[in-house]
């Protein structure tokens, strides 16, 4: 069986903004993780604030993530 290594995408809400474009995100399933802002969002200076709905790509250990979409 093929191993699927594609990053898991999940929706979440920003609950706290931290220094260095780091955010605390509450995921749909209730977990709270730390996530940083993806490069594309930094380049285009997408502002993300508390309460925003975002899409997060999870790391393989699923304790960290990168915010890829604010929507």
């Amino acid at each position, binding site marked *: *069986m*093929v191993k699927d290594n*594609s990053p898991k995408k999940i929706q979440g809400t920003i609950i706290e903004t931290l220094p260095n474009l780091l955010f605390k995100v509450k995921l749909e399933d209730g977990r709270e993780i730390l996530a940083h802002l993806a490069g594309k969002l930094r380049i285009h200076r997408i502002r993300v604030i508390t309460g925003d709905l975002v899409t997060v790509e999870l790391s393989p250990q699923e304790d960290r993530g990168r915010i890829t979409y604010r929507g």
Partner: protein
Amino acid sequence: MKISKLSAMRQGGAILSRIFKEAKALAAPGLSLLDIEHFFDGEIEKSGAKSSFKTVRNYPFSTCINLNEGIVHGLPNQTKLKKGDFISLDAGLIWQDYHVDMSYSWYLGPPLDPKFIKAGKEALQKAIAQAHPGNHVGHLSQAIEETISSAGYRPSLHLTGHAIGHSLHEHPFLPCILKEKISQTPLFREGDTLAVEVIYTKSRQDGLVQAPDGWTLSTPDAKISGLFEQTIYLHAKQAEILTPFLW
């Protein structure tokens, strides 16, 4: 009685190859995917082996059957096969606590696009030729990527082969695309057992579309997708194919 890893996996591979051959001969228009699954499941039980895929979390079947645009993890269902379908069958079993895994793709009826199938087989052969102690995983990825890309198809970005042994998916993973420097990828060692997989599509996009069943992954533009896999054992100089079906 406990036997060595190599002989356990050799025996397992031989059993799997035999069942695989029979299942391939069985597949005919009018038969449903579930019929093939039942046959496979029954044969695995008869041979005294255990189903390997059922050890994967929440996966209820012994095989993955992907039709046409299905890339991997196709759940066997009531869909009936028809002439001209492109099938990828992926199956594994556990023999003496060791997993073996293989897959193969073919057209039902006359091959509509022999070039597509040839590219996959060639990529797998070249990848296995690169798998020997002293080489890196990157050499294998590079062989797959170059063969598939030069034939005009797209190797899968996120779906990978894997090492295999006491569990189905073990480290290191064997990507079909070289994403970093070869020297930074893991080294092969003597005694490694690997499930080398070539996953490639006619699609022009890298994305994967997940079906509502939560498993089946398909190409986003409904282009067909192929899958070739062998389990191999690394000796000091070269690799031995443990699932010698159709080679």
